[in-house]
Each structure stands twice: as C-alpha cells, then as structure tokens.
C-alpha cells in the first residue's frame, strides 16, 4: 500500500466539477507525468495529493494513509510541492528560499540549526546552484528559480516531489536542463509526480504517463504505450503525429497546416526517420 492512491475522488470549484470519480494508484519511486488539456484537472489532482484541497467525495491516500489524517508538518516531510514559476513579493536570497524547506524540521523554539544549514547546502549543491546562494531569488533566471524551488523541496527531506508544470515559463534550454536534473534525481531515488503541457517532456522524463480529460483518467501506461498519435490527437483535439528521431526515441509533432507547401502537404508516415 505504498505510493499515492486516489480512490473515486470527486472535486469541484463551486459548481464546476473538475474531478469526477477519478481513481489511480502510483508505486513509490519513478517519475509519473500527467498530461491533459487545460481544465482537465491536472493541477487540482496534484493539490489534492498535497492535501491543499479536500475531495468532496472519495479518498486520497499516501502510503495507505488518508492524507487528511496526516498532520501538515508530517506530510511536508514526505511530500514536497514545487509550484509553478511565480514572481515573489520579497527578494529573499536563494539560500533563504531553500532554508524555508526546513520549516517542517525546525524546532518550535530553537528554530533552524546546524543540521538545517547543512541540508540547505547539500540541496543547493545537488542542483548545482551553490554559487547562487547569496543572490536574490527575484534576480536569478527563471530556470535558476525553478532549480531553487526543487532544492527547497529536497531540503524538505521529502522522497516525493509534486511539480505543477515545472517547465512552464522557462526558455527552451532551461526546459531541457530542468528535465535532465529531474532524470538525475530520479536515478538517485527521488520520486516525481509532475504535470505538463508538453507530451515530449513526459516522453523524455517519465516512466509512466497518465492522460486526464474532463476529470477522468483516459490513458495510463509507460510513455511509449500511453503517448501515441491517436491518444494525443484525441486528448487535445488536434492532429498530432509521432516521429522517430532515432532508435527508440520518439517525439510528437503537430500536423499544422498553416500554409500550403510541400512540408504541409506530405504527411509524414508514422515511424519514418528524419
């Protein structure tokens, strides 16, 4: 009974139903990606797992325990949240932001101690951003800010990181670098649940892909099984093709027809080399 489990979970914002009897179960470890169109319930699902929302019906479990029954501090030591990239009101240094990850470990009176500083330093080092420790978090690049938030999640001591669209707002190079970091950390035993708007990111980084539409699971499996031209076309309602770039590496491309030309006119056959 380890890992995250959602059992017949319903959730609505006011009258708008977002999740409709959704059930799924993850095994501990590994990288799980959630794909789905806007409003399909990806972010809501992650917030339910984090205990930030309470389901109107159904149960969310972490290692078999009802998330609602786990005290907030204890939950924070097991699950960490990497929010979407956002601008901050106050110019904390990168080290100060990562130190906030030690909140669930700090003593009520004694506050942060040597062990907390050590954890911060190790987390910064694990993400290769030790040199940014004293820089204001508001003045580093978007990619570095996202790495800072991941470092904070590691400092929290959680084995599972929940990331809401972690590549959102990053430039192309930083998206790639972020996914590489996720892969490295996953090899070291950190588990990830992340949502994304990019099927290619799920293909590159995930061991398991869950497709969501209208608050239900509509596809689930290893990337190569879950992500197909047919499943993506159905999920997003646009024409999508899969292209093999080398043995065992597939990418998806939209079948755009913006102007008449030879490229648009000749649909590439599935599996054709590029």
């Amino acid at each position: 009974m380890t890992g995250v489990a959602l059992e017949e979970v319903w959730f609505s914002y006011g009258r708008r139903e977002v999740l409709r009897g959704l059930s799924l179960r993850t095994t501990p470890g590994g990288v799980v990606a959630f794909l789905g169109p806007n409003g399909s319930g990806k972010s809501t699902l992650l917030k339910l797992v984090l205990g930030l929302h309470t389901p109107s019906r159904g149960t969310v479990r972490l290692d078999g325990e009802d998330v609602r029954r786990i005290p907030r501090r204890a939950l924070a030591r097991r699950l960490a949240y990497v929010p979407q990239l956002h601008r901050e009101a106050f110019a904390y240094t990168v080290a100060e932001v990562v130190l906030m990850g030690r909140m669930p470990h700090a003593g009520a009176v004694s506050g942060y101690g040597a062990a907390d500083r050590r954890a911060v330093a190790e987390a910064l080092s694990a993400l290769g951003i030790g040199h940014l420790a004293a820089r204001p978090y508001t003045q580093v690049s978007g990619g570095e800010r996202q790495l800072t938030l991941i470092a904070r999640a590691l400092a929290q001591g959680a084995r599972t990181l929940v990331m809401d669209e972690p590549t959102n707002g990053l430039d192309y190079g930083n998206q790639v670098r972020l996914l590489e970091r996720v892969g490295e950390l996953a090899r070291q035993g950190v588990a990830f649940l992340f949502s994304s708007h990019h099927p290619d990111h799920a293909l590159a980084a995930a061991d398991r892909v869950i497709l969501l539409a209208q608050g239900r699971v509509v596809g689930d499996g290893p990337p190569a099984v879950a992500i197909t031209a047919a499943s993506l076309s159905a999920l997003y309602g646009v024409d999508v093709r899969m292209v093999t770039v080398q043995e065992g590496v597939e990418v998806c491309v939209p079948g755009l027809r913006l102007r008449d030309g030879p490229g648009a006119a000749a649909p590439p056959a599935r599996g054709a080399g590029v």
Partner: protein
Amino acid sequence: MDAVATAEVRLIGRTRRGAAVLLGLAALLLLAVAISLCMGKYPLRPGELARWLLQSTTGHGALADARMRLLHDLLVEVRLPRIVAACLVGAALAVAGAGFQAMFVNPLVSPSLLGVLAGASFGAALGIVACRTWPEVQVATLLGGLLAVALTVGIAAAYRVGGTLVLVLAGIVVSTFFNALVWLVKYLADPQNQLPAIVYWLMGNMALADRTAVTRAALPILLGVGTLMAMGRQLDALSMGDEEARALGLNVRAVRAVVIAAATLVSALTVVLAGVVGWVGLVVPHATRMVVGPGHRLLLPACALVGAVYVLAMDDLSRLAFAFEIPIGIVTALLGIPFFLAVLGNARKGWSG
C-alpha cells in the same frame, strides 16, 4: 563537498552579520534615547546626564541633592515616559506593518489594513465625547480597535472564501464604516471643547503619554511585538503565499490568526498612547528591508529597533522644531511621504523581480 561547505559558510556569515546589525541598531536606539533625554525646553549637556545617571545608580557623585531631585523630575517624570511611549509606538507599528506585509504578500500594506486604526479612532472620539476620565477614553480606544478588526474577520469568515483578498475587502469596508462614525461623532461633538480635542488627538500626539498609561500599555505591546518577532520563520513561509506555506507544513489559519491578533493589539495600543501616527508601519519596514533583507527572522527585530528610533526622532522634531509643538502624526506623514517616494523605486524592484 566544497560547494556545500561554501554555501554553509555563507548562511552562517549571514546570521553573524544579522546579529551585528541588531547590536548596532540597539546602540543607535540607546544613543537616540540619551539625546532625547537631553533635548527640550530645558536643555541638558550630555555630561550632566552621565553624571546624574552615575550618581543615581551608584549613590556617589558631586551633584547637590536639590539638583538631583530636579533632574529626576525632569528626566524620569517628564521626559522618559514620553520617550518610552515613542519607542513603543514606533516598534509596535513597524513590526505590525512588517507582519501584515508578509501575511498579505504585499510590501505596500500598512497595519491599518483591517480597520484597527479607524476603529480605535472611533473609540477615542466616542470616549472624548462620552467618558469623563482619560483612562476611560483609553479603554474605549482599545476596544474600538479590537472591535473593528473582529468585525473585519467576522465578515471575511461569513463569506467562506479562503485567502486574504476577502479579508482585505472586508477591512476596507470596516475602515470606511468606522471613519464615517468618527465624522458622525465629530459632527455631534461640542464644538468648543470636544471637537478640538478629537481633532487634535487623531492627528497623533505624544504629549499625553503619562507614566501610568505607558506602564500599563508597555507589557501588552512588548508581548505582542515579541510574539510577532518569534514568528519570523512562519512569516517567511506565509509570504510565499498560502498554498506554498501549507505545503511547507505550516498551519496557515493558526499563524494568520496569531499575526492578526498580535498586530491588532499593538496597533490599537499605539492609538491609546499617541493617537493616530501614520506611515510608520509602511516606511520603516521598507527602509529596514533595504538594509537587512526580507528574511523575517532578522527583519522583525530590526524593524522594532528602527521603528523605535524613527518615531523617537519624529517626536523630538515635533516638540522642538518650532516654538510650539506640532502633532507627531503631521510630522510622520509629511516626512514619510517623500521618504516613501524615494524608496518606492527600490520597493518595486523587490516586488516585481
């Protein structure tokens, strides 16, 4: 692990630097208190203050008994209560402002956001009209401030929408309501005695901070300020937004309740001591943040010290700059606005990255 060691050293270095800043600010406060004790209609030379201090603590010295009594009356009975009141008011407003700014994730909110100053003003105005003794007015002031914020929190809770936005809107409504009530009391007040008293009081005034009032208000103010100062870690997390704070393991509702209660208590008590002293809760946290950074474990104690020095200096200015005393609220507003405009560029940088 060289990178790890370097990062650790930086964190420790920051803590040490913070301690040095606090020591420096404490020394500055002592200096400001000493200067303020010497200044007034009856100026003293610093040497005489030192001799008086030495002689009254050790019992040995060359000052005559009559002189000692005169100095005691002047310093301990007349000047010190007012100085202590100024320091308490400054520390309270600065720390309450910084706390609210973290909680509402906005460096531009002030302690009056939830209506405490409007409510306390109404309490004071009503007290001046209806009560016979000054202590009764003070109790009315405190109750007015507490009532207004209770109303704000009640309205926000009735809407059952989480988050701080509904709280801010309720605060605006309640502030407007109590300001209207202040006008009503002014309109109905006796224009010969009561109306001038209300107007004068609401402009901010340290002159009525007598020893009894200061002694009574000191402990709750220090407790409230201390409570807020002890919540630096929680306020850091809260300033990242509610959801992140909760994901970091924080009980957001409980922390928010404590911050609102402590900030409301100390802010209402500043009105009890000195009327409405504006802009301190906005200007001081800004200036302090520029020096010590936004981390609340250091920012809050630094704000308390800077706020104390700031209001003390403003009070010295208000009683000594002209032949007659001008209300301190006018001084803090007139000097606070240009100062605020000057630091606004910097504030924007912190806010929008």
